[in-house]
């Protein structure tokens, strides 16, 4: 019995060490950003591939997610600062109905395009695994950076990454 117990303990330590080797979930990514078309607040469609030539930050958010709400004004500040340099920001709302999002945006207005993904097609396409999720796409339409969640200070990381992508010329 004691032998079995110590074997199980060793096994669990080994298993944990294996789990440690799992790939990191945040940081750099590669590959073309999957294309999509979603409707904006004005009902007009927005297609990602038509934004090629600009640096695009795609942020998946919802009103029921605390860190998402906290992040919105900070994303607005980044949008206003870098828009003129060929940067745009797409706020993809993942809720089933747009009513909560509209109510939130009334209190916390933003000027960047907010798109609605009520059937979560784009969330699945991008394998969104945390709320919020932020993807940075370069001028050639390739995904470059991926962030899961939001914590204080992430906006500084976004800023550094936007700056480096904006400097790249096709």
């Amino acid at each position, binding site marked *: 019995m004691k032998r079995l117990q110590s074997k*199980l303990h060793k096994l669990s330590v080994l298993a944990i060490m294996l789990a440690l080797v799992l790939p990191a979930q945040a940081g750099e990514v590669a590959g073309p950003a999957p294309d999509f078309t979603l409707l904006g607040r004005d009902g007009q469609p927005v297609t990602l591939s038509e934004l090629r030539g600009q640096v695009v930050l795609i942020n*998946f958010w919802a009103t*029921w997610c605390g860190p998402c709400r906290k992040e919105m004004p900070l994303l607005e500040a980044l949008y206003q600062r870098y828009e003129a340099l060929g940067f745009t920001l797409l706020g993809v709302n993942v809720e*089933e109905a747009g009513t909560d999002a509209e109510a939130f945006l009334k209190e916390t207005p933003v000027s960047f395009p907010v798109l609605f993904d009520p059937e979560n097609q784009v*969330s699945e396409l991008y394998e969104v695994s945390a*709320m919020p999720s932020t993807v940075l796409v370069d001028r050639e339409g390739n995904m470059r950076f991926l962030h899961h969640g939001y914590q204080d200070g992430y906006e500084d990381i976004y800023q550094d990454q936007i700056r480096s992508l904006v400097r790249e010329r096709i």
Partner: protein
Amino acid sequence: MSQLRITLTFCLVLVVTGCGSVEPWVKPYERDRLADPIMSFDRDPVSNGYINHVYEAREGARGASGSSGGGCGCN
């Protein structure tokens, strides 16, 4: 008790090794209802702490109640 120990260690192993291979079946963007305050296990910590204390001071049972309180000479 050693059987319990083995079972719990085994469960821990399953949980941890399952980390990379099991896909989350409730996606993060599907957790709107779970984020509603009425679904919170500990919505009013001050009230929960108090009512757990009321029971613990009058019952023989203690523990696993969700609040980690302190001692008192409550008779």
